[in-house]
């Protein structure tokens, strides 16, 4: 039963990775930019959620929604100020800007409020744990899983059934052709950043609730791992990011369970290098031949 318990933990952790990975994969799919600042948007979301709960005494769901909205606005601001002027610049320039934005958010936060960690108030939501065939599933795990699955279904709905989703798919397929078809490319890219950042904000609040400790540099490692998850599933592919996140969470939980918990952070990067060597397009990706 121990192994099932670990699988449940892995799935909870994996759904957090999946939520962050979705933002990475959507942004990469549309502007071909690794948005290094995405992990920091996740951190900002966690802090907004924390302040909503501890200062304004809001419940979990209002805090979640406020964090998502605030992060969406924050993401659009980042895109408009830092990335939009570089739309036609080289990839390396965009990547370095993303690193700069990431450092700025991290150290700006430390400068503004100090580096000390905060403890998320526990029992925000009174939940009982569930006993199922001898496996104890905590209420928080279920809440995390439920919230993530709901958000992912919502995302699928937005991407496949709405007009903006159609525009996003068109722009990611061919930006110039989409522009010729009368799609407002700039607004579509902003919408992508808004949706991705909102998901990262939600992941931040969920992460804070699950691990109870948040700090200004907490976004780096989950951000990188979520990127690994996005590459694992095939970058630019939305179901791939979900699968990749869940798979990575489960792998990490299994590594921890087999007694190598200190190596847990390393495993994600080993997975990354292996997937890049053997299947660079990811699990769900198609190999695209390079044209001259």
């Amino acid at each position, binding site marked *: 039963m121990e192994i099932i318990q670990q699988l449940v933990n892995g799935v909870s952790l994996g759904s957090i990775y999946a939520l962050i990975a979705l933002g990475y994969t959507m942004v990469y799919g549309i502007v071909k930019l690794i948005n290094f600042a995405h992990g920091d948007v996740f951190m900002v979301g966690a802090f907004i959620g924390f302040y909503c709960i501890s200062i304004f005494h809001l419940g979990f769901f209002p805090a979640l929604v406020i964090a998502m909205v605030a992060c969406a606005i924050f993401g659009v601001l980042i895109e408009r100020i830092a990335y939009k*002027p*570089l739309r036609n610049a*080289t990839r*390396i320039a*965009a990547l370095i800007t993303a690193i700069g934005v990431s*450092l700025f958010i991290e150290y700006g936060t430390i400068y503004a409020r100090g580096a000390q960690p905060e403890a998320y108030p526990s029992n925000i939501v009174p939940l009982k744990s569930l006993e199922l065939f001898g496996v104890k599933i905590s209420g928080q795990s279920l809440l995390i899983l439920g919230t993530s699955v709901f958000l992912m279904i919502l995302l699928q709905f937005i991407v496949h059934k709405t007009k903006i989703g159609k525009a996003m798919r068109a722009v990611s397929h061919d930006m110039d052709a989409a522009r010729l078809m009368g799609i407002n490319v700039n607004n579509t890219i902003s919408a992508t950043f808004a949706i991705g950042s909102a998901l990262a904000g939600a992941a931040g609040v969920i992460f804070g609730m699950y691990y109870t400790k948040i700090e200004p540099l907490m976004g780096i490692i989950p951000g*990188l791992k979520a990127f690994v998850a996005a590459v694992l599933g095939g970058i630019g592919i939305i179901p791939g990011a979900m699968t990749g996140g869940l798979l990575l969470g489960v792998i990490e939980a299994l590594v921890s369970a087999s007694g190598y918990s200190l190596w847990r952070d390393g495993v994600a990067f080993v997975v*990354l290098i292996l997937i*890049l060597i053997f299947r660079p397009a990811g699990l769900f990706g198609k190999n695209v031949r390079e044209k001259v």
Partner: protein
Amino acid sequence: MKTLKQTKTFWIWIAAAVVFAVVTQFLINGGTLNSFYVNTLFFIGINIILAASLHLIIGITGQFSIGHAGFLAVGAYASAIVTTKLSLPFPVALLAGGVVAAIAGLVIGIPTLRLRGDYLAIATLGFGEIMRIVFLNMDYVGGASGMTVAHLITWPWLFACVLITIVVIVNFTNSTHGRACISVRENEIAADAMGINTTYYKVMAFAIGAFFAGIAGALHAHNFYIIQPTNFGFLKSFDILIFVVLGGLGSMSGAVIAAILLTIISTFLADFPEVRMVVYSLVLIAMMLFRPQGLLGTREITSFFKVGKSAKGGSQDASKQTVA
């Protein structure tokens, strides 16, 4: 005739460097430079080697590597093991640091250099993190508490290493191999079509860069008394990257100047680490928005004194950014 002139210029530069080294040695011995300035000077030297080695990988060969602190860590730990555990002399440790880092460069370079652009960046970043975690979990090298190392470097050693690094990398850049690396940077597919073995040159540049990063690691370990895995994280790689990017991707003198300036600035801002990082990040963003080619672009500082000639090792059109 031209070769003779070039050789002459080369020896003049070397003589100037040696004179500088001797004068500095007298100043250190005479006590004019106190230990604070000497420490800063050593730190500048190490950073110059790091900047030059990454310049070879990013600036010349155009391979975007952001895990350079991994090689620094490998060199630092390898050399520390040689002096503290095996009690061998310092020069052996210096060489061991470089060689082990170069082997690490080959091992990581051969599979990952098939990747391009963003994917390569992420793979090297992953490598840097893996190295940190490996050293964190190795009890032989002290785990998280790190390793205490004797302070063995002296000014002549440091200066010799800096000089050799710069001479080797500049001469490499101006050689046939260097031109092949530049062609890989300019257009990999075209280089391939011209019969250049692109993978060979990429791996070669990567291994040479890793070798010098390992040398820098050995100097780092024997300068700071203690090495810990946290010294070689993600942020260290970015520090090195910032030298190369601000100086100008493809400009050796730019990278060296940026390394000197930023080390001095960060020494003075050492009491305010957050301010330092905020300033760094804003400078990085502003630089990419307004002058993406860096301070000097692909030009060298010497080219500003030669009117009507283009710089060696750079592209003809300095206003155009060609890297990646």
